[in-house]
């Protein structure tokens, strides 16, 4: 695994993956959105609000998956000093925050007509809101210090500590008596009909491949930022030496 800490090798692999991830995302959105919005049937209880869940479930899946990536990358950065692991975490954070905001907002738009309330202080909703604040904290901490390395370490530490929230979100519907429904897909199968499972899985795939494609663009950007910082530092050092 340590050989992937080499930015050149890492980016060579990432750049090879990029067109496939971007292409897959476009294809899955192109197929998934019309099925989600047009051809899939309304639910017998939820009516057409079920179409919101084709966005809500992928957003919720993505916000947790991205946080898993950030926490793993941060741990690798803190333990092995892998610079690429830290850059993966940094480039993932804005997307994770947006996915969490979308999961919360689409949930609210579904909750109002189905539960009669935009928001309830239910364990699943509250722990997801906490995840959103952790994302905001990570983004704020990463750029809060003049010395970027201190910001990286502080944000990475927050990400690792905050990962305790992931199992809480996942198991909240089992541990507590919540209004939020339990998982629809488990090891014993699914309770969702194929006509509704198809758009949901297509959209989960679309969101995931979108994340991978935008992450690689973000990584290019973060690497350039690191190079700019190094160039500025060496430029300033050369200037001081000349004086």
């Amino acid at each position, binding site marked *: 695994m340590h050989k992937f800490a080499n930015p050149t090798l890492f980016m060579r692999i990432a750049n090879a993956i990029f067109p496939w991830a971007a292409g897959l995302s476009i294809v899955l959105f192109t197929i998934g959105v019309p099925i989600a919005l047009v051809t899939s049937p309304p639910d017998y209880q939820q009516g*057409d609000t079920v179409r919101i869940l084709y966005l809500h479930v992928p957003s919720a899946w993505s916000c947790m998956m991205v946080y898993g990536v950030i926490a793993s990358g941060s741990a690798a950065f803190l333990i092995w000093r892998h610079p690429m692991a830290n850059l993966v975490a940094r480039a993932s954070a804005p997307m994770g925050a947006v996915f969490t905001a*979308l999961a919360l907002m689409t949930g609210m738009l579904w909750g109002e007509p189905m539960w009669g309330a935009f928001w309830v202080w239910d364990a699943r909703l509250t722990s997801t809101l906490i995840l959103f604040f952790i994302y905001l904290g990570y983004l704020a901490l990463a750029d809060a210090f003049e010395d970027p390395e201190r910001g990286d370490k502080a944000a990475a530490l927050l990400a690792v500590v905050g990962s305790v929230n992931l199992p809480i979100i996942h198991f909240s519907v089992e541990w507590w008596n919540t209004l939020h429904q339990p998982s629809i897909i488990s090891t014993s199968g699914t309770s969702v009909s194929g006509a509704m499972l198809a758009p949901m899985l297509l959209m989960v795939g679309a969101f995931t491949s979108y994340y991978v494609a935008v992450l690689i663009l973000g990584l290019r950007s973060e690497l350039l930022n690191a190079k700019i910082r190094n*160039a500025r530092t060496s430029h300033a050092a050369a200037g001081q030496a000349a004086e």
Partner: protein
Amino acid sequence: MEGFLEYLDMGGYAVWVWPAYGLVTTGLVGILAMTLRTLKARQKEFDELKSLRRNPSADGSP
């Protein structure tokens, strides 16, 4: 036409369904646009720094 309007009405839930799709589209397009804009700006800054290192007198300093 009536069928299309009926579809847009989403069984009476249009006010919830369409904003959800609008929000997600805005979020996903927004984060992609922001990433591309930052990447472009950093690439430009890096290219300028590189040309400055090749030609130090170009920074205007005496």
